[in-house]
């Protein structure tokens, strides 16, 4: 994964806000990278760009050798559902769907038939230790359990890259550590992980830490 001279500008009225300035970054397959920085420093925007949810205003982004900026919405969606898994700070589960159905969501968009979907979802939930709570609604699960469901969901499509935006931000230290353990395990099984955090403690798990300040990378661009 290679980013060169990425700029991201938001136009709000007459002011244009430069979120990212000349960000260049390289992440190798199998790496565990954390992005650290104060809030508002642009780390989430960078993560969105990495996750093909957002497009840079200028600059080039190659994802596994593919120039992302030239892809259509459909191709970006394909990339997201096939190669990228997301884990958010606030879990972002759909509250009306059971844990299993939440995990099935990305598979729905891959047009995988229902029986196979269910099978994969059960497997993934089992992997994060929720094999017995598959039919619970998110509201019936604790924060840590919800985040596990979210991780299972991110893993369902067997992505090469897992993007995590402060995955432990809404959790207490103990459950946070448990989640980190799961992420580390995943990393060991070969998945590339890029995690945004502002706690230096969490970044100790990573191979490398990128520090971002006012939209510029100040350390660890690789």
């Amino acid at each position: 994964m290679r980013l060169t001279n990425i700029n991201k500008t938001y136009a709000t009225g007459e002011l244009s806000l430069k979120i990212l300035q000349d960000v260049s970054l390289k992440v190798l397959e199998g790496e565990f990278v954390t992005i650290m920085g104060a809030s508002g420093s642009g780390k989430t925007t960078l993560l969105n760009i990495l996750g093909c949810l957002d497009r840079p205003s200028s600059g080039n982004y190659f994802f596994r050798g593919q120039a992302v900026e030239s892809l259509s919405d459909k191709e970006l969606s394909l990339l997201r559902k096939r190669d990228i898994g997301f884990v958010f700070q606030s879990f972002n589960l759909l509250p009306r769907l059971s844990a299993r159905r939440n995990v099935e969501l990305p598979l729905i968009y891959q047009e995988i038939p229902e029986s196979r979907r269910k099978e994969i979802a059960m497997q993934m939930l089992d992997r994060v230790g929720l094999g017995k709570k598959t039919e619970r609604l998110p509201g019936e699960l604790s924060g840590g359990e919800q985040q596990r469901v979210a991780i299972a969901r991110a893993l369902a499509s067997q992505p090469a890259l897992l993007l995590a935006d402060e995955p432990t931000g809404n959790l207490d230290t103990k459950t946070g550590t448990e989640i980190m353990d799961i992420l580390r395990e995943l990393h060991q099984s070969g998945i590339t992980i890029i995690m945004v955090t502002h706690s230096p403690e969490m970044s100790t798990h990573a191979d490398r830490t990128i520090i971002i300040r006012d939209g510029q990378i100040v350390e660890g661009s690789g």
Partner: protein
Amino acid sequence: MLPRDIIGTAWQSLGVHRLRTGLSILGIVIGIASFSIMYSVGESAQQKTNQAIQELGADVIQVSPQRTKLSDKKEPATRGETLSLRDIDGIKGFCPAVLDVSPEISDSSDFYRHGKKEMLNVTGILPAYEEMFKLQDARGRTISELDLESGHQVCLLGDMVATRIFGNKDPLGEQLAIKGYLFKVIGIIKDTGLGMVNVKNDILIPLPLAQRLFQSNEIRTLYVRARDTNSAMAELERYFQLRYGDANRFEIRSQKLLLQTQEKNIKIFEYILWTIGSISLLVGGIGIMNIMLVSVTERVREIGIRRALGATKTEIKLQFLCESILLCLVGAIGGTILGFLGARLISYLFRFPPVFSVKLLLIALVIASVLGIVCGTYPAARAANQDPTVVLRYE
């Protein structure tokens, strides 16, 4: 995304706010119900009219002296101003558009059944009457020229009267006393539903006997079978003008025109329902659009999550469009059911046979789908164009 999953997802989302969903489709329900009722009643009336006109063959025109108003009392009606048997030949000779003329004399007569007195209508007719109102397929036989010539004391009974007088007993061949004279029942007749005459409650006897029985030569009504309605009516008017000096003393009504007037009244009713239906659908459509826009705003987060998990803009759009169409379809089905009940009620009240068809349901579903697409497109496009990053930033 598989079509099955699109529909399933949409259906699931609709189930979340059941009350809201139910209220939002009320407009569609009422609109489609109005259309269903309109269609059913209109179709039924149309069928009835067509059937009547077809059964009638040539048109029948009814001629009767107008009832003298109270204010005209000063001028007593002279004998010449009522119709007489001579008018039959007169009309036949004068009016080329007239095929046949059939007079009718009627009066009521007392009958006793289980010791209770009952008044029943007795009508004197000629065989032309039977032909004119298609009474040939009676059970038994009808009154013939021979009966007239030989003065046979025979009668035909309407099916209702027959059961009233004879109960479960077969009346054919039985004797019936009318004004003290015995008449033999030779046939049972049924109403043909042609509107102008109502034979099911009638006792028909040969005209000459009726004249003697009622001691009257006064003809109450003449029925005229016309080759062509308009020219026959014009000729009749001219005949009465020449014969009696005033055509306005006679009421000349065409059965076809009567049916058409009836049809026109139903048309007015249809227009009212059509207007209600269109307005309801319009308002209903706006309601659907509104609820869909609310739904999009409420679900920005869901949209963002789905996008992050790999949904394309098109898939999001389809999902919302599908919800809108489903809403309208549910409304259409509800409306059809309501319409069905409404039409049943109306047909019960106005004695119409209710008409329903798969066609009606299909039309309702097509209308609903189109409405769903029209009202869902804009909200769906808005949903699809939500920026997923903005959406996910709401922590």
